[in-house]
């Protein structure tokens, strides 16, 4: 069952310039794995090599911050919308 994923500008180069794509999976992790299988490299900035969510990317499921749901184990299903937004962050010192 497809889940709609909104793709930020930074990652559109990986998905042929599309602003939205669809993927399948029962959890965010499965969804992103499906996406990665079709668009290799697209999740590099989303999932860490250790398999967690990158600190400076926000992933939302139906407008809720996935960090406060179940992170990558958050359940998703037909009709859900996932949005990916890189953090807007920085500053004069170290973060």
């Amino acid at each position, binding site marked *: 069952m497809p889940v709609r994923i909104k793709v930020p*500008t930074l990652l559109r180069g990986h998905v042929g310039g599309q602003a939205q794509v669809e993927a399948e999976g029962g959890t965010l992790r499965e969804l992103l794995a499906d996406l990665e299988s079709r668009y290799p490299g697209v999740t590099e900035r989303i999932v860490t090599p250790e398999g967690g969510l990158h600190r400076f*990317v926000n992933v939302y499921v139906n407008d809720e911050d996935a960090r406060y749901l179940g992170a990558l184990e958050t359940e998703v299903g037909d009709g859900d919308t996932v949005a990916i937004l890189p*953090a807007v962050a*920085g*500053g004069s*010192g170290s*973060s």
Partner: protein
Amino acid sequence: MIELPRSFADEIVEHARQERPNEACGLIAAKEGVPVRLIRMRNADQSPVTFRLDPKEQLRAFDEMDEQGWDLFAIYHSHTQTDAYPSPTDRRLAFYPEAAYLIVSLADPDGPVIRGFRILDHEVTEEDVRVG
């Protein structure tokens, strides 16, 4: 060249002064390349040396821009003690190649300075900011 309306430049400085000692941050939306809206954002870090937009507030602002047909024109933040130049942290965390990065320095409290940059893959290119 980044053309910034005077009222926007003034508001960036005012916002930076109000948030002091913490860094201030916000977004500027444009319609067809012309800045139309400055959106003050909360610094979720509440820090004098870093900033990060609150994730839910960020999503709401981006959704509003989408609904209005606006583009992200610029991301601004303040450096309260240092130059208006991207720090290593700014370069590392610049994920919006489509936006100008505006930095206001309050290092000289009587002479705030706004400078503008593009940051792509940690590489900084300065762009002139024309206020008026």
